[in-house]
């Protein structure tokens, strides 16, 4: 019975000390520098969006027609008042970029969660249950893919009227199919594996098989897809805003600023570049976080990472000792 007690303690150790788990996660994050940069960037961006009104130097909607198209501070005509210059209406570019993070991150996150959630569930059911369910979901996807997405978005937005909620709903309606298709394909491959058959033979019902045995083994492709989609959604929101059916001024988003700024690209490059850079940094940060998450969600990768770290530490210790003994030799 000592074995069962050992197992029990191992279980309690591993499962119920969330603090220890979190600490271990932090240590692993510290080891993976790329992931660390991603997490730091992402946290900074989210914080920036949360406290935007307090850190932005100006009201993003405040116009000053006497100070139109001011260049950034490092130009001769630039001033510290507008660090990244002003746009064609004299609004502060930095403040707009800080405020724009709110809408862009929110829309991107909500759409990825909504479209991803719905698409993945439909794909799982189509792939695992097969038959009529599969045919129904796949024909639905085919039909919707055949219909131009932007047109559908414009119709819905024109009828209901533009708002943040409608933009999220419309983009989700447009974006779930790609998750559905990819999940279905991956499920078809995974459901053939013996461990899924084993789960069936053991007597698992289908929801348990789908969510416990199939879905966890799809995390890496789905994470990758979600990140690509996030970047696309930020730009799609920009396109809708540009057409006047997305975010309505005075509110702002990165995409809207890029779209408006493109008219002045040759006179004032900073109008596109600053919000564009913000989008690029966000996507980069998410990519780094995602590749780290892919690693830690795979137990085998996680252990490999740990082993790599231990050998490196061991090697450096040996090196130090050698250096030390070499020094002692020299003293003698």
């Amino acid at each position: 019975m000592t074995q069962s007690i050992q197992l029990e303690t191992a279980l309690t150790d591993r499962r119920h000390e969330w603090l220890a788990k979190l600490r271990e996660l932090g240590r692993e994050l510290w080891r993976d520098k790329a992931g660390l940069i991603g997490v730091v960037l992402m946290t900074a961006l989210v914080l920036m969006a949360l406290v935007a009104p307090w850190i932005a130097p100006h009201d993003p909607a405040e116009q000053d027609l006497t100070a139109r198209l001011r260049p950034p501070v490092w130009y001769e005509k630039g001033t510290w008042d507008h660090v990244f210059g002003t746009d064609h209406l004299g609004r502060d570019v930095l403040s707009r970029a800080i405020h724009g993070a709110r809408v862009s991150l929110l829309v991107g996150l909500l759409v990825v969660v909504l479209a991803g959630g719905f698409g993945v569930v439909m794909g799982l059911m189509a792939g695992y249950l097969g038959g009529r369910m599969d045919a129904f979901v796949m024909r639905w996807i085919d039909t919707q893919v055949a219909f131009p997405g932007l047109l559908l978005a414009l119709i819905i937005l024109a009828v209901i009227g533009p708002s943040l909620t409608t933009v999220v709903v419309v983009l989700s309606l447009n974006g779930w199919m790609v998750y559905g298709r990819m999940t279905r394909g991956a499920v078809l491959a995974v459901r053939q594996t013996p461990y899924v058959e084993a789960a069936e033979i053991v007597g698992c019902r289908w929801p348990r098989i789908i969510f416990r045995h199939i879905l966890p083994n799809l995390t890496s492709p789905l994470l990758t897809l979600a990140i690509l989609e996030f970047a696309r959604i930020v730009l799609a929101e920009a396109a809708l805003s540009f057409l006047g059916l997305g975010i309505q001024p005075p509110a702002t988003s990165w995409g809207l600023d890029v779209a408006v700024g493109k008219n002045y690209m040759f006179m004032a490059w900073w109008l596109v570049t600053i919000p564009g850079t913000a989008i690029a940094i966000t996507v980069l940060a998410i990519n780094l976080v995602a590749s780290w998450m892919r690693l830690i969600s795979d137990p085998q990768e996680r252990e490999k990472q740990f082993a790599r770290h231990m050998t490196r530490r061991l090697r450096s210790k040996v090196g130090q000792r050698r250096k030390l003994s070499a020094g002692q030799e020299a003293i003698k």
Partner: protein
Amino acid sequence: MTPTEPTPPLVQVEDLSVYFDAGRAGFWGQERLKVHAVEGVNLEIRAGETLGLVGESGSGKSTTGRAILRRVPVSSGRIWFRGKEITHAGREEIRGLSRHMQLVFQDPYASLNPRLKIIDIVAEPLIVHGLVKNLHEAAAPVARLLARVGLPADAGARYPHAFSGGQRQRIGIARALALKPEFIVADEPVSALDVSIRAQVVNLLQDLQAEYDLAYLFIAHDLAVVRHISHRIAIMYAGKIVEIAGRDQIYDAPVHPYTEALLSAVPVPDPPVQRARRRIAYSGEAPDPLHPPVGCRFQSRCPLVSQQCREKTPPLAERQSGQWAACWNR
């Protein structure tokens, strides 16, 4: 084959056929193609008994095992388990059957979910059948199972990739045992393992059989292993059983020419004897499972083939007490 013993067998299969749909042929798709995976198989397995099922690749061994577990649709025939017919069991009934019959897989690497810890894998049958409420309740029975199959004490907290092939197969056996079944289909359980590990796993299976009065359907193509573990052996060829007999009967006095050829391929670990033996090798090819021939399935390779073999399928007939073979000319 009619049951002669007074107690009914644990598993009884009567005239089992399994055909797989293979699409259509012909310009207009007028011809329906069927893969004749298993045809007219009769067998029975008593409690505590091991029936070895031997045959070459594609002979329908695994399909037979999976049909008994009701994992593949049965085209015709009947299957009884513990005296109850399960040929037409519904989904929930099959789920209930999983408490009594289980499967041990061939590939110990692919049959364990890489994202679950060993305790999750072994506790899963207990949890889905409501025998324990959560992992904490499962810890004690799982630890007992892991100890019983000879795994280290801390195995439960680790992931499958930390284990060798033999250890993984033990985990698979522990999972199959968790529900205390009476019948286990072992689908080539040692063919993916190192030769040095095979004996250990086979001995474990034998020990467990003695302890829990388990019945095995032991599917294999390694004849030495089958001889070691089986009480009776059935030989399959192209979806049909060609011979079924007690272990020693079949090894000492095979009736069917295919059995003879199969056994002659097993080397004898005694060089002079081995050198003196004649290796029987028949030329010809196994029949196309889409278009099996009329008459005996072995006719294209059989040295004894006669006109009768090409016209009528030989029935499985009793030659000696307990030894049945399907051949016109023996």
